[in-house]
């Protein structure tokens, strides 16, 4: 397992440098927490005016939000390559990556990882436990395994979309504001898709399938049987999107034009 050992060496190196800047790390975790708290408050404010949202209760929506935080944390830790264009294409750092004998995307993931984001997994699980305790949910012995698959599926959907967007830079290195927009669209996946109109629902399911990061897999744990079909598609969508993204990335690398000196 060569990739595995490279990965752990990078992780240990990352920890070493991060621990020398303890204040930075603490600030980052704090700002993540604050951001998550604001989102929670938003949900509470909305439910201050209504009890149900298209048949979903407040606790269910909080549960979905909690679930969403887990794959999002994994995405944020490893696949958050929003500055790929700027850093690797415009500045030409891709040259360096391409002179090393490891897959280029894997190297970039190692260089850009932000393990602090993984803290979000804990927050997410805490939020789910809080919401779940109000909801009278039953857990089976295999649910943790299903949870793992759902989380990985969701994280890979997210990762796939962002890798696809990053790959565009190989063809055109002009700056776009597509990345920040994507973060906003990504947030739509945190709410039940049946509150949106049909077009948006279709987009969130099949084009930019952010619904597979939040609402669909959560529906399984909430026992909403009408959504089970979508819920079990989560790992499949993750694999398909991620695979397609890698495929496009590999084509993109052959189109890389390099930066002038």
């Amino acid at each position, binding site marked *: 397992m060569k990739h595995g050992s490279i990965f752990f*060496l990078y992780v240990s190196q990352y920890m*070493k*440098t991060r621990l020398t800047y303890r204040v930075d790390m603490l600030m980052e975790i704090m700002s993540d927490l604050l951001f998550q708290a604001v989102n929670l408050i938003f949900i509470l404010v909305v439910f201050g005016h209504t009890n149900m949202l298209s048949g979903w209760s407040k606790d269910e929506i909080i549960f979905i939000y909690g679930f969403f935080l887990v794959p999002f944390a994994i995405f944020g830790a490893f696949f958050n390559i929003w500055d790929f264009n700027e850093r690797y294409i415009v500045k030409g*750092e891709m*040259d*360096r990556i*391409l*002179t090393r*004998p490891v897959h280029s995307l894997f190297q970039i993931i190692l260089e850009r990882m932000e393990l602090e984001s993984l803290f979000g997994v804990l927050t997410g699980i805490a939020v789910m436990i809080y919401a779940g305790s109000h909801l009278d949910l039953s857990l089976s012995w295999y649910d943790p395994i299903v949870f793992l698959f759902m989380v990985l599926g969701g994280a890979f959907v997210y990762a796939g979309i962002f890798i696809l967007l990053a790959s565009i830079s190989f063809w055109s290195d002009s700056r776009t504001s597509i990345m920040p927009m994507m973060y906003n669209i990504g947030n739509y996946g945190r709410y039940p898709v049946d509150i949106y109109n049909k077009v948006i629902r279709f987009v969130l399911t099949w084009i930019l399938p952010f619904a597979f990061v939040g609402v669909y897999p959560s529906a399984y744990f909430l026992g909403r049987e009408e959504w089970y079909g979508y819920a079990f598609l989560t790992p499949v969508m993750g694999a398909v999107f991620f695979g397609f993204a890698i495929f496009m990335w590999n084509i993109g690398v052959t189109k*890389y034009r390099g930066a002038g000196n």
Partner: protein
Amino acid sequence: MEKVIDVQSLRKDFKSHSSRSGLKGAFRDLFTRNYKVISAVKDISFTVNEGEMVGYIGENGAGKSTSIKMLTGILTPTSGIVRVNGMDPHKEREKFVRSIGVVFGQRSQLWWDIAVQESFRLLKKVYNVPDDVYNEHMNHVIESLDIGPLLDKPVRKLSLGQRMRCELAAALLHNPKLLFLDEPTIGLDVLVKLKIRNFLKEINEKYKTTILLTTHDLTDIEALCDRVVMLDEGQIIYDGELAKLRSNWGEGKQIEFQFGEQVSGEQLQPLLKELEAEWTKGDRENVWIANVVNEEHVISEVIGRVVAANRITDIKIHEISTEEIIRNIYEEGMRNG
């Protein structure tokens, strides 16, 4: 001898769109674009044998970087054949890059925030170098480059010269057969340059490492390379021995006279009558340079006439430097091939 680099009519075209002017033009650009194809490298061919040190020179934009990037597998060629170390650099990239070392003077291979030896450790893992091979080889490299005391410092705290030596060590960590050096001595002081040159000679002798060197500093090339490949506008305009380049183009010497009094060009002109020589004005006051052919009787005749006619405070005789030769070649174009 084994061919390390074999390039056959290699070409790289870049397609770029040229934008129209004005707001109206910008709107039209949205719908139809004007594409312009620029050929950065135009069908070049050359081979490099094992153990050679080749200077790869050319002005900015001559196609040096682009061709090196194709040789190292970074860019995909538009057409042509590249075989380096018996592999196709772009198609078998991950396997191929194990057999080469790359130093880009302008770009660091090392991690900015961590100690040099930690960077080496990561690279050792990335290249999968076994411990015993690493220890034996790297101890030698570290000693020759004299970087032992720097190993526990983070890269950002190193001076440029220190960093460059570490970069070189990092590029040689997996003991590659072929080394690409792009401006390795840019901005370095003379002592560091000498150290790097000696080191390169040493590894070339010890491991028969083939070296392809790009630089604007021609003294590097004079010190290291027997052969130069010169590019201009994407084509090879000279490929051969450096010594030959000098003898073909640099036939001639410059005699620099420092006159004791004010002199003018008209005054001096008659002195060179019937001789293969001409005057140019020096960059200091009362300094004139006679450019003469490299023949003993002409040189002594010029000196004799000038000294007889004027008061001279200083005389220097220069050989024309490689830099001037190359400047001349670019200015005049390659007339005789």
